[in-house]
């Protein structure tokens, strides 16, 4: 399984309750990808909030949810489903594989450039 996806970071780069932003050029996707650590579980979503332009990697992460840093629209970390206004549209999610100390992302095929 170690050849699946793209290594985007090491596990230690993303402390619990935080996220990092992976540039779209790295993953070949149409948007940057935010990689979240919520209590030791890792998730990846399109980074740009579907409401305006904020980076979800800067959001508040808690209980399986990321809250947008601008207007607190909420998204489910597991599948990107919008949970709260002002956002009204989901964001795409990507597959995360923890490969030893590496974090690999398998980009959502619908979001490839």
């Amino acid at each position, binding site marked *: 399984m170690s050849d699946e996806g793209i290594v985007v970071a090491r596990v230690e780069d993303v402390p619990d*309750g935080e996220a990092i932003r992976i540039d779209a050029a790295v993953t070949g996707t149409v948007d940057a990808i935010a990689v979240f650590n919520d209590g030791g579980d890792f998730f990846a979503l399109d980074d740009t909030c579907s409401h305006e332009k904020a980076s979800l990697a*800067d*959001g*508040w992460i808690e209980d399986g949810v990321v809250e947008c840093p601008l*207007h607190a629209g909420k998204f489910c970390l597991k599948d990107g489903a919008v949970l709260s*206004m*002002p956002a*009204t549209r989901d964001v795409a999610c990507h597959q995360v594989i923890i490969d030893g100390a590496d974090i690999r992302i398998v980009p959502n095929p619908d979001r490839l450039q």
Partner: protein
Amino acid sequence: MTSSDALPTAGSPTERRDAGRVVIVGGGLAGFSAAERLRVLGHTDEITIVEGEDCLYDRPPLSKELFAEGFDVDALEFATGERLADLGIGTRHGRRATAIDPTAASVTLDSGEVLPADTILLATGGRARTLPVPGADLPVVHVLRTLADAQAIRDAVSAGCRAVVIGGGLIGAELASALRKVGAAVTLVDPSPTPLAHAVGELMANHLHGMHLAHDVDTRLGVAALIEPASDGSATVVLADGDRLPADLIVVGIGIIPNQEIGVAAGLDADDGILVDAHQRTSAPKVFAAGDVARRRGDDGVMHRREEHWEAAQLSGQAAAAGMLGLAPEVRGTPWFWSDRHGVHLEVVGRLSGSGTQIVREGGPHPAVFLIEDGLLVGAGSLDDANTVRAARRLIDQRIPVSADELADPAVSLRAMLRASR
């Protein structure tokens, strides 16, 4: 249509009741949130929103994004027609409710049509307060409340035009910033040297107001006494001290007046807003109110301020939905709002004025401010640092003791303080 599969968060269903046919007067955030939440809570009967405008839309971008490319109805709508149909939410656009019968629970429209209902929600919002001076009705004078208002301001602006914004509160500051960004020469008039001090505290208010100067917005201390028309369609704002401010565009942002008349005429208790309890119930059993038009009267009779912020409208609409179904409202977090000016994002939770000790966190490009009382945090404000306020909100809600030294120390994140308490 959403079924009843998502009930759990709305508190104990002490005495669930059937709200029957619900007519919601007003399709802003409070009205729409109530409709949506009714479906989440399993309400299956008719829901009809009466809205004088052409769509149901979100207002915060009106004062921030009105000059942005792609600013239009599609970007603001709460839901597409398809989504509304999926939710089973009916709409009557272009019609205004002129009267309600609180006993029969019917709503009369300006067409003469009477909508029968079993439960009514008044979410009529507010209207922009106008300036009580001669000349305030000139065509060059605008207010900002609706999409049409925003479009009219946009159409009136060109680079280099002289704009005078009267009122340095949230709307005035946001608009001054947006006007400056598109190249208008902007003068901002307010009677206070630190507008918003009641909302964000003196220090933050001073910092915020100072940003105008740094962005070439001319700030004037004063009040408008008169607006004089000029022959070329422009006008001059004359301040009480005699200062004269020629303008091609004047925008007045001095607060709102609750649209409570329809409730008052029906005999509902009102006092600067239709009075409601924690369930958004008015003094008439079949009538609820939410959003800017509603004012909370505590069980102890204490009158609260009307909360004119976005989240307050959303949560009060949701609480009204629960109330209509006889369910307890969800516990609300400490009040929170945001604002944007000159490219900087302000967030505030709780109160930053009144009793307590103010703590300032320096060290970044902008200060963060906190108010503590009896060892507990009661308010926080930050610029371009939303997570400090998000953490503060949880520290306040969970009544976690805080130390003044840690709050003042930029090396200690509030998130870490929150985690340490768990």
